[in-house]
């Protein structure tokens, strides 16, 4: 299995505060890889660096054998990396379906001529295609009935699903999920677990930040543990559970 994503000595400093230091990460294609660690360990910072939202202070990121360290978020998205956000970042005043359709932006398959020169009430074929694909995504996550509702009117769990559907619409090869089960009860968490398995079966690799250990242990093939911005352990679920450094990080020592 090839390596999908690799970081070398990735670091991020904010005005003297080191959020991430010398992190080496390697995600294999087809994997479900989890990143865990106590609060403030730098996990979301890592996601922000990978998706291009933050600029690296040091280090390098290679995705699909190309260096993406200095690329802008939209370029990285087009290459095939999608993400969700810890604090849901939906488009509240747009409908559920429209939210997902934004994810199809790069697949618009039309040009400015067609946009401006089409006859008055005709619909562009590309638009219909986009809508169809968006609805397929919604069906995949189980939100098809609510497609005409405003995103802000959805209950919390559905909002998270919507964000995932939207990210999937970009047809990513790697999906970054930032705490997809945050704030969910065990029943909802099961649903997320199933969804992640479904996504995996589509051939999409997943990098996951989560605090819910049951979810992580149940689904991740490899786990990386961060603490205070540094990688302190990496391995399978059993290896991590028994690693003294990890235990210390979570329970504290002394």
């Amino acid at each position: 299995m090839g390596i999908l994503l690799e970081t070398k000595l990735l670091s991020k400093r904010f005005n003297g505060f080191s959020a991430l230091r010398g992190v080496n990460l390697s995600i294999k294609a087809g994997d479900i890889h989890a990143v865990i660690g106590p609060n403030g360990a730098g996990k979301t910072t890592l996601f922000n660096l990978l998706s291009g939202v933050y600029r690296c202070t040091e280090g390098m990121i290679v995705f699909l054998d190309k260096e993406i360290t200095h690329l802008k978020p939209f370029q990285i998205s087009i290459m095939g990396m999608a993400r969700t956000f810890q604090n849901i970042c939906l488009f509240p005043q747009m409908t559920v379906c429209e939210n997902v359709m934004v994810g199809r932006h790069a697949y618009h398959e039309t040009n400015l001529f067609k946009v401006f020169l089409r006859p008055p009430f005709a619909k562009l074929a590309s638009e219909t295609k986009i809508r169809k694909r968006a609805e397929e995504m919604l069906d995949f996550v189980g939100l098809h009935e609510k497609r005409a509702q405003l995103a802000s009117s959805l209950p919390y769990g559905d909002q998270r699903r919507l964000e995932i559907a939207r990210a999937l619409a970009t047809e990513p090869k790697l999906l970054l999920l930032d705490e997809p089960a945050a704030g969910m009860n065990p029943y909802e968490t099961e649903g997320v677990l199933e969804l992640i398995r479904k996504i995996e079966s589509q051939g999409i690799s997943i990098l996951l930040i989560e605090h819910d250990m049951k979810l992580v242990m149940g689904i991740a093939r490899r786990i990386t543990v961060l603490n205070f911005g540094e990688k302190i352990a990496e391995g399978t679920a059993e290896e991590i559970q028994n690693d003294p450094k990890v235990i210390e990080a979570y329970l504290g020592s002394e």
Partner: protein
Amino acid sequence: MLGCTYVLVALGYTLIFGLLRLIHMAHGEVLMIGGYVALVIIAYLHGNLFLAMLGSIVITALLGITIYAASIRYVEKGGHLSPLVSTIGVAIVLQEIFTKIFTGEKIAFPQTLVFKNIQVGGLSFNTVQIFIIVLSFAVMFVLYRILKGTMIGKSIRAVSENTETARLLGIRVPWIVVITFALASVLAGIAGVLVGIAYHSIYPLMGIEIGLKGLAIIIIGGMGNVVGAMFSGLLVGLMEVFSVAYISSSYKDAFTFGLMVLILIWKPEGLFGSVTEKR
């Protein structure tokens, strides 16, 4: 000297911004009205400068509170844009009304101070300038003591930092807001009187002009930062005086705003502000 009046205006903006995270677009108008009140007291009511100052302070404090109640208190729900627009509305209304009452022309501000020239070193000052500088610094000092020393001052600073926490600590936030508005408006009012004294004339449009300058100053110094406001106020004042003397008077505005634009581009948090990471 010019810088000092700018500083007073800038401090007013800073107080309000620090408190409510909003820009009080009618602040310049308050300054203008302060000047006019003093004018009226001196010219028509035959009061002296002290009375004029007092009257100005009282009226502008009330005015500030009224503006808050009328246009800001109930408007906050619309997002950041709404209070901005409604204070612009207030500014327009006030400015137009005063233009109608007093015509758009400059009116001579009565001389009440003995005008004497003094030589210090190689520079010549006159008593008017000294008076203004001294008074401004006195006001700044008083403000500083209030903010640092008194309960009210500390409450204001607390609310600026974190409204929720302040509320939990028992600080009566609505009152503090009102007081801050009054305080800021008083600063503007005093500045207005000083401007009148300095230039021997006032006119209704000076609200906008000086108001915009004040905005530029807090941008340059960093919003919400008191020291920054003081420093950049003086800086801009000096800059303008120099550009009038050595380049050309029409350009002085351009310099101030040009500097502001540049700062916004290169160092948006101002010279003294603190950074928040974006990208």
